[in-house]
């Protein structure tokens, strides 16, 4: 039998394909409009379903749906109880008694016990598994179980941010009995947590399907089924929300968010959150002279950068902390003053014939508009007489260059801190023993190292405020902007906004 394709039956076939494609697609889109389910377009996947394994900030809102953290954060970032109901860091910072809930069950029905706490934070860490939480809990020597619902965390050195870390990266409770019976590899394939949702289907780099945990101890989520489509490309995320293939998405270009916000049925937000955009500074080479560093800072028009690249929503910063966090200084302002920049350079002996020169490194695409900001900085600096060379680097190269002392004088950098605690802002950025900061000057480094073991909260926060101000005024750090998260959603879908950009499906509901 032969089948000849002529123009007529070709057109018939094309028509049939279009109709059936359209019908199939209508079925697809009808699913997204179901009010008992929500489809979220998210920019990155979890690195593994073992939540203790890797620190990936963008994966935290996904982990928080399946697992629980001992402590939680309210939308205004204040620490609140969760699996742990009471906690008190002792004045010496060397121990922390705590109490846990007695009504929590894992998804497989096993009750949560103190043994699970000890296993997650002590035994697993010491077992030799390569877990990132081993680094955040390196001072934790033991959890002494004092009753079925109480225990004491014991530290080898003062650990003032222990409560913050119980609600931060990687600190999720995992089930001892289940992992010991199936092994860590199988646990990562079929994770069991205590969270508001259970994982029902997962395809790496493509889709996560979650179903409501009806035995959840906390507030029951209103939406039964959550589908998270991993859409890494911002244009594809924009297209997905515009076409209705997803109900909510984040981190699309500001301009696209503004455009979509004017579309029927959609609403857009540009939300500042706990991520800094700053310049990591060196204390030598072209930046050995403080006058040059300060001149570089005074020359930056941060409001113009915010307006040009973030629709004016990114808050200009004078201190390496974001508004509303404990280390923020609302009344402190570092002036944008190009004339002062010129004067500082002139007083320091720099002229048009003999200008101050340095190199700025920047990633391209690591965070929105990074390289554009870098180019704008170079232009602002040129206006005051600074001669700057722009160098593009990969994010993965940053640590290698920093370790080898090969970073240039300034590097445009983005730093995330969902807790908002100043140790994880100023402390991490300027601790000379950590791989983040390029600043190796010990006049600031020593102060930071002391604050790392300061157990009195008020003293610690006051110390960080002082050191952050000192760092800015000596040119050891140039904070630029508070980063923003763009979010576009269907108008009928509501969610709870968090100061650290968590977007949690268990807070969502349809109207």
């Amino acid at each position, binding site marked *: 039998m032969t089948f000849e394709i002529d123009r007529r039956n070709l057109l018939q076939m094309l028509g049939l394909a279009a109709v059936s*494609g359209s019908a199939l697609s209508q079925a697809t889109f009808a699913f997204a409009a179901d009010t008992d389910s929500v489809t979220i377009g998210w920019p990155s996947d979890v690195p593994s379903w073992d939540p203790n394994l890797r620190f990936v900030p963008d994966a935290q809102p996904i982990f928080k749906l399946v697992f629980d953290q001992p402590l939680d954060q309210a939308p205004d970032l204040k620490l609140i109880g969760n699996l742990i109901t009471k906690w008190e860091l002792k004045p010496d910072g060397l121990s922390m008694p705590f109490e846990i809930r007695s009504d929590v069950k894992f998804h497989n029905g096993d009750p949560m016990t103190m043994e699970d706490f000890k296993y997650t934070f002590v035994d697993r860490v010491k077992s030799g598994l390569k877990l990132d939480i081993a680094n955040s809990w390196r001072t934790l020597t033991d959890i002494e179980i004092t009753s079925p619902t109480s225990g004491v965390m014991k530290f080898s050195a003062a650990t003032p941010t222990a409560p913050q870390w119980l609600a931060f990266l*990687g600190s999720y409770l995992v089930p001892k009995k289940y992992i010991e019976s199936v092994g860590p590899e199988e646990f990562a394939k079929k994770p069991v947590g205590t969270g508001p949702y259970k994982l029902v289907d997962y395809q790496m780099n*493509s889709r996560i399907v979650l179903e409501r945990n009806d035995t959840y101890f906390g507030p029951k989520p209103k939406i039964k089924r959550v589908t998270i489509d991993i859409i890494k490309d911002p244009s594809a995320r924009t297209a*997905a929300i515009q076409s209705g293939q997803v109900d909510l998405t984040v981190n699309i270009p500001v301009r696209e968010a503004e455009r979509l916000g004017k579309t029927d049925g959609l609403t857009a937000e540009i939300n500042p959150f706990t991520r800094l955009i700053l310049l990591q500074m060196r204390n030598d080479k072209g930046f050995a002279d403080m006058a040059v560093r300060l001149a570089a800072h005074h020359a930056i028009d941060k409001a113009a950068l915010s307006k040009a690249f973030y629709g004016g929503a990114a808050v200009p910063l004078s201190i390496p902390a974001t508004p509303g966090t404990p280390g923020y200084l609302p009344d402190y302002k570092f002036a944008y003053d190009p004339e002062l920049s010129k004067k500082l350079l002139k007083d320091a002996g720099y002229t048009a014939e003999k200008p101050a020169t340095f190199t700025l490194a920047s990633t391209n695409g690591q965070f929105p508009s990074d390289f554009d900001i870098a180019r704008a900085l170079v232009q602002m600096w040129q206006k005051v007489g600074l001669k700057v060379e722009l160098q593009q680097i990969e994010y*993965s*190269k940053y640590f290698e260059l920093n370790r080898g002392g090969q970073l240039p004088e300034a590097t445009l950098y983005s730093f995330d801190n969902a807790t908002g605690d100043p140790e994880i802002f100023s402390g991490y950025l300027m601790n000379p023993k950590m*791989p983040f900061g390029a600043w190796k000057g010990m006049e600031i480094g020593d102060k930071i190292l002391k604050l790392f073991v300061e157990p009195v909260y008020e003293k610690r926060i006051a110390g960080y405020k002082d050191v952050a101000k000192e760092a800015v005024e000596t040119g050891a750090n140039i904070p630029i902007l508070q980063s923003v998260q763009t979010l576009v959603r269907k108008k009928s879908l509501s969610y709870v906004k968090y100061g650290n950009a968590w977007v949690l499906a268990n807070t969502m509901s349809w109207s």
Partner: protein
Amino acid sequence: MRMFATIAKLLVKRVLTAIPILLVVSALLFCILRVLPVDPAAMSLPPNATVQEVEAMRKEMGLDRPIYEQYGIWLGKLLQGDIGRSIHFRQDVTSLIGTTLPATVELAVIAMMVATVFGLAGGLFLFYVRGTRAEAVMDFVSILLLSLPEFLWSLFLLLIFGVFFEVLPFTGRLSPGFERPVVTGFLLLDSLITGNISTFFNALEHMILPCLALGIALSPSLMRVLRSSLLDVYQDDYIQQARLRGLSEKRILVRHGLKNAILPTLSLMGVQFGFLFGGTLLVEIIYSYPGMGNLMVDAIRNADLPIIQGAGLTYCIAVLVISIAVDSLYLILNPKLRAR
């Protein structure tokens, strides 16, 4: 029988040649990745790791040893089937590649089919309209198609069929709610094996846009090579003789022209398929397609050297296999080669 013996001989010869090629490629891959200024030790640790911890990790990963020593250890493990463990995912690279490879193979095969259909049809049409005004128009169209890379096609098709007409899905391999059978990892095949027809059609629907984007980007070169080959072939005497024998133009084209002109096109298809296999990265990212390209992008972002090495070797093996397959096909189609 003689044909099979010739093909078997070729297979043995090519497999033996492939061994040193793989060794050289693996050494090159290893050395290039080791001299890149990235620090896999720092990338494998959390942000709050100290400089001392990074140093300890460098030692543990063997990064402090000479490159030849590191390569020797890696090769020894590779020969035992151990490609290494991912720095970012902390999983065996073999398992990660095994999970993602079928999606890419499926995508590449169907995209190649699309490219073949468009390429051959376009090539025949170009040849058919030779010497007419339509030839200039078609030439312009083929150059236009050729100058647009596949990621632009991806975005263009996504906007047209996904956003404007809203007739095709463009995220992932399946719509939410469809059962995902896992037998071989090849979704189309698995849905047929398990008798899940609705999944089969839904998966196929999800493949339309990425395969079109890849296929359209590849087809213009096939069109142009086929047209040129046909023009060359039609200069040969046997075409004139066929005409003198009274054969119809259609018969001459199918029996004589195309049969001979297809061989250079086939070679190009082999080369393109190799490129296609390693060139799906951006298309997979745009369409959230969970294949090896998507994994490779993650690996590059995280300086995950074991995955990059494993994926590089896999691409190399795929290219060698494709090249052997094309050579075999050449032998089947061209009796002159079998006679040598």
